[in-house]
């Protein structure tokens, strides 16, 4: 009896369920809840895109913020400087990020573990230096402020949605796009392509023996992950009212790694849980003290020493232990 129940649990369309629940936030919560919700949704997409490399393929990228930033700048430049509509700028941001990920990734995937991490970091810092200094296009150290909101007047013409604020409209747009992206990423994870990535993670030599072009698969994963990070960055640039060089700095890449680890990289829904926990914790802590990095560091230490599987990994392990205990005492 236990086996089919577990499968139903797994087969539930979680993306759809979470999306349908998140739809009610503007109606039931405060403006601040909507604000946090937007941030969580964007971070969730960013961290899941990273986890395609980290958890699925076993590649530790220390420069994933580069593609997030490229997406933010691409979307921002198109919408602000050239007045392009969001419907063009958003896909273009993803494509631009994927394109750069393809070029940088070509060099990165040829290196093994630690060198891979360092080269991704080096490329990210190159992107950062360019964003920081290329005043004509990126606004240099001042950034690219005031990226316009997408035009969503059509939404208020729908019955019952007339009184939505711009932030609410953008929230709805964000969760719709994030839900579609997460569904796509989950599909990729479960596809034969995703299975092959996991095979490569578990045993690259073996994968090469059975005739798999390991580098090509890793490169494809790198580009796809970069593209989705670009989508997240495009949304974030609009949400945060601008694209700034900070988005690309190495500490941003470290932050998203922490998010992934916090949630648990061995589960698809681990990293989004990590994003949720980190955003929530951040807003709780910063209302008491300015020493948020200190708290984050302590959380990270506890995580590394006590719960290396992250929140979801810890919960699953706890559940398994409970089940075994009940089985033994039945």
């Amino acid at each position, binding site marked *: 009896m236990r086996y089919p129940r577990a499968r139903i649990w797994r087969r539930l369309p979680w993306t759809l369920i979470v999306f349908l629940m998140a739809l009610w936030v503007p109606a039931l919560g405060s403006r601040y809840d909507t604000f946090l919700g937007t941030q969580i949704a964007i971070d969730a997409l960013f961290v899941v895109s990273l986890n395609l490399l*980290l958890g699925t393929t076993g590649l*530790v990228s*220390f420069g994933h913020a580069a593609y997030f930033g490229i997406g933010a700048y691409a979307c921002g430049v198109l919408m602000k400087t050239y007045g392009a509509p969001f419907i063009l700028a958003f896909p273009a941001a993803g494509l631009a990020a994927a394109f750069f990920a393809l070029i940088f990734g070509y*060099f990165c995937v040829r*290196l093994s*573990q*630690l*060198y891979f*991490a*360092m*080269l991704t*970091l*080096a*490329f990210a*810092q*190159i992107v950062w*230096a*360019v964003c*920081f*200094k290329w005043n004509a296009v990126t606004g240099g150290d001042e950034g690219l402020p005031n990226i316009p909101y997408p035009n969503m007047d059509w939404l208020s013409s729908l019955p019952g949605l007339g009184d939505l604020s711009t932030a609410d409209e953008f929230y709805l747009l964000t969760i719709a796009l994030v839900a579609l992206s997460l569904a796509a990423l989950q599909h990729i994870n479960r596809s034969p392509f995703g299975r092959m990535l996991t095979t490569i993670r578990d045993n690259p030599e073996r994968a090469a023996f059975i005739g798999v072009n390991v580098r090509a698969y890793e490169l494809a994963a790198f580009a796809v992950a970069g593209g989705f990070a670009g989508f997240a960055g495009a949304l974030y640039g609009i949400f945060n009212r601008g694209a700034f060089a900070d988005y690309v700095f*190495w*500490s941003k890449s*470290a932050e998203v*790694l*922490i998010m992934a*680890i916090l949630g648990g990289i061995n589960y698809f829904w681990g990293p989004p849980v990590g994003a949720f926990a980190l955003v929530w914790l951040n807003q709780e802590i910063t209302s008491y003290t300015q*020493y948020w*990095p*200190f708290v*984050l*560091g*302590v959380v*990270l*230490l506890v995580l*590394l*020493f006590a719960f*290396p599987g992250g929140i979801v990994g810890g919960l699953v392990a706890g559940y398994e232990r409970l089940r075994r205990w009940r089985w033994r005492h039945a």
Partner: protein
Amino acid sequence: MAASFLFSQFVGGLTTAMFLFLIASGLSLVFGVMRIVNFAHGTFYMLGAYLAWEAMRWFSPSAEAFWPAVLIAALGIAALGAVVERLLFRHLYGKEELYQLLFTYALVLILGDAAKFIWGTGQLSVARPPVLAASIHVLGADVPLYNLFIMLLGPAIALGGWLMLSRSGPGRMARAAAYDGEMLDALGADVGGIFTGMFVISSFLAGLSGALVTPIVSIVPGMDVEIIVQAFIVVVIGGLGSFWGTFWGSVIYGQVLSFGILIFPGFSLFSVFALMAAVLIVRPWGLFGRPLR
């Protein structure tokens, strides 16, 4: 361009290089022996600077107190390194690299904020020691004696580190531990002790360089994150784990930065990152390193 201008540009680059080498040498040592990239190294450097400032206050008003303050800072950070390694870090040795990286990043966050809590966010500075306050005039360029001292200290540390690693008994043990720690352990050597020792020496170097940099740059929060990236580039260019590589990597970095400003103003940062990427693409093990097994 006048020769004296080029020469002063060269000397400036060399000073930057030797400062960076002081910092990067510790990073390189820990990577070479323990195969760990220690992000907290920059934070140890920053704490060394703060500690030197604090020690100067104890001795005030004597500016000659600079030298004992430097020693106190270096020893204090070495002690901190010993505590961190003994209590926490050693439990992560068998774990994945990502966990070790994130551990050192957690130290960056915690210690960086602790420094902010203790010393605030303002800029602090330390006066140059009076003995080295003058400058000399060489080939039309003014070189402060203090910079000259750093330029001589760099090669001295490089030589000392090299002698220690290649000629002394403990150094040989350390290299053996880097090569095959498990085998060395099986032969009855105290590998844990060697790792602790290396971590302490590396922390000492971080504290020393942080204290020595105080007369040149002001002490501010965030100097740790900024310097660690630069130290990292130097180590990667020279070759991870190669001590002389780190030395020549610093020299190259200093000159690229110094002359890069002349060739593309504003893009000198870009040029050093590009150099790092180019080295990683062509020779991932660095210009002077050897491929890892």
